């Protein structure tokens, strides 16, 4: 039986005999975001996982701070910080198996790095020396995607292809609350559900699309409720609770892996920094709101849990911070070196073989560069 046939057929029946194809009830998300940290359920959490989450969260925040600093030094063209959203970023990376695929949006550098992408290579796009700095196949991380929601159908297609080939691979695709308004979001979720593709969609609802708040983006009870319309389960989770996100994603990934099809997960979180370093958030939101969210800080939530359970002392905290500082120092140092640039790269990868037209243009640029170099050499010789 082919993958497509497994879905079975449903034929339209005249209304007197009409039956809904699936019961919508199990697809509906809980009324409140799922939380673990700060609840009794946290007691069951694996200490190693908690510690790992903590260390990665701290590294992640440090990474955001360092990258933002690099924009001020002119070392990055722009940086969209995920400070406040680290729990989503880290849990997304950690919930995946090595053979799985991650499809990040432009805000998800942290998730890529936590999955193993070199911290400098992850910044190539934003530094501006190339569009993608890493080989997507090395860590199975698709290029950071700028056109909103367009990466979602890619994740569906890849997951579907893996399933057709019989590989045990799940794709996890990240998107923002604003991105859910795009047609590509709709089409991707629908294809995923119809194909029962092994893919999980994580919406980081951080309350804003640049300046536009959620109430100008959707009137839905929650973004997770969109799942019902595709016939897939929707889950709602506290996006600042790393343990809860990790748990919900883990369940969704396992469900997909077992052939259960896609899940839509909405993580309720908040962007503490401005949209990017170039944005002025005071134009559209109050400090009060930011402060309220700071009080629900993803790192503090884990730290509190670890401390309460006696799993974290001053020394351990210091070690984690030192590790993060070392990462930041390395990042700073390597980012302070000018990247190697070859203008001829403009032509190298447009096609497998340059067209005759590109070959001509290639010669033109090479001649220009030679002339420039000659002129410089002459100038220096004078």
């Amino acid at each position, binding site marked *: 039986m082919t993958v497509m046939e497994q879905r079975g057929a449903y034929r339209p029946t005249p209304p007197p005999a009409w039956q809904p194809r699936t019961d919508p009830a199990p697809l509906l998300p809980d009324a409140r975001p799922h939380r673990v940290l700060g609840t009794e359920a946290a007691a069951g959490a694996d200490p190693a996982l908690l510690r790992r989450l903590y260390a990665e969260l701290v590294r992640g925040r440090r990474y955001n701070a360092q990258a933002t600093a690099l924009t001020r030094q002119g070392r990055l063209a722009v940086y969209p910080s995920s400070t406040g959203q680290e729990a989503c970023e880290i849990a997304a990376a950690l919930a995946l198996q090595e053979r799985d695929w991650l499809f990040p949006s432009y805000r998800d550098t942290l998730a890529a790095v936590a999955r193993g992408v070199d911290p400098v290579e992850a910044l190539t796009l934003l530094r501006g020396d190339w569009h993608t700095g890493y080989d997507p196949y090395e860590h199975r991380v698709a290029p950071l995607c700028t056109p909103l929601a367009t990466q979602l159908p890619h994740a569906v297609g890849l997951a579907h292809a893996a399933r057709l080939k019989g590989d045990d691979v799940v794709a996890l695709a990240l998107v923002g609350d604003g991105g859910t308004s795009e047609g590509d979001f709709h089409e991707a979720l629908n294809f995923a559900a119809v194909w029962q593709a092994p893919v999980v969609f994580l919406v980081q609802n951080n309350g804003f699309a640049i300046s536009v708040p959620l109430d100008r983006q959707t009137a839905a009870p929650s973004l997770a409720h969109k799942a019902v319309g595709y016939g897939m389960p929707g889950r709602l989770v506290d996006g600042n609770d790393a343990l809860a996100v990790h748990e919900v994603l883990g369940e969704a990934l396992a469900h997909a892996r077992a052939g259960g099809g896609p899940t839509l997960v909405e993580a309720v979180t908040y962007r503490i920094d401005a949209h990017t370093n170039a944005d002025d958030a005071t134009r559209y939101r109050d400090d009060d709101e930011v402060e309220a969210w700071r009080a629900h800080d993803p790192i503090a939530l884990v730290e509190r849990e670890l401390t309460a359970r006696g799993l974290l002392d001053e020394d351990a905290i210091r070690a984690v911070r030192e590790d993060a500082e070392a990462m930041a120092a390395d990042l700073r140092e390597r980012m302070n070196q000018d990247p190697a640039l070859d203008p001829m790269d403009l032509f190298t*990868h447009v096609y497998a073989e340059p067209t005759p037209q590109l070959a001509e243009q290639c010669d033109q640029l090479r001649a220009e560069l030679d002339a420039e170099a000659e002129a410089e050499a002459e100038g220096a010789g004078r």
Partner: protein
Amino acid sequence: MTTVAVKPATMAQALTRALRDAMAADPAVHVMGEDVGTLGGVFRVTDGLAKEFGEDRCTDTPLAEAGILGTAVGMAMYGLRPVVEMQFDAFAYPAFEQLVSHVARMRNRTRGAMPLPITVRVPYGGGIGGVEHHSDSSEAYYMATPGLHVVTPATVADAYGLLRAAIASDDPVVFLEPKRLYWSKDAWNPEEPQTVEPIGRAVVRRRGRSATLITYGPSVPVCLEAAEAARAEGWDLEVVDLRSLVPFDDETVTASVRRTGRAVVVHEAGGFGGPGGEIAARVTERCFHHLEAPVLRVAGFDVPYPPPMLERHHLPGVDRILDAVGRLQWEAES
């Protein structure tokens, strides 16, 4: 020399055969689109493929062109070679962002790590009495998008050979199928080992000395007809079938125009901002001192594609081509 039984076949049949052969040769080839499975496509080009290769290899997708091309991108990322059918030219527009921002750029974006061997089949052009949105010639959009190859056959044999080449290409190819040639017939032997035509080569369909008609796709037969009619006026016209708009075969085109000294570019797409501007400009750049007259263009008018009852006034026909040839400043000759 053995005699081979050569039967006439339609372009649609040759395309079907190319898909079938490609699927048989390479399990990575997957066909997908609206109605391509059970129905075999609205033009029946995918007829029988779902039956022969299963629904997983020839898949009826949900009705969403961006979703079709977007999922094809993901499938290609995982090593498949998707062949996407867009049902009609104008219905490829919803997939424009995926095409321009991803399909055309992924290889370049990833420094060659992630090529996307996707073929996007688009039935295009008019002359079939189609109602609005069913007769667009959208090649100008694709030509202006670096990273894509743009290919269009005019003969039954080329339909086979070029589609095989497109599917075999590691680069994305927009494969434009002239709708009104789907039922055109040619002596073509589907039982013979088939030639895969290299992408990027124009062919001279008719030799001539007076002037060159540069054309492609649905306008090739029209130009051949015009060339025959031109004999009565004493003109011996050469007809070049470009076959590939990207890459462009400057060599063949330039050689012809240098020889004839005059040229007319002919296509159905609108003239303003259409393919003819690029072609005329590059021919002029390369042949300026060989030209007896400016390169002229015969194209569709710069209007939305007309309704069926008026399309004959829009489409470049033999008379309009001959008129243009007549304006190539022959007085210089005498």
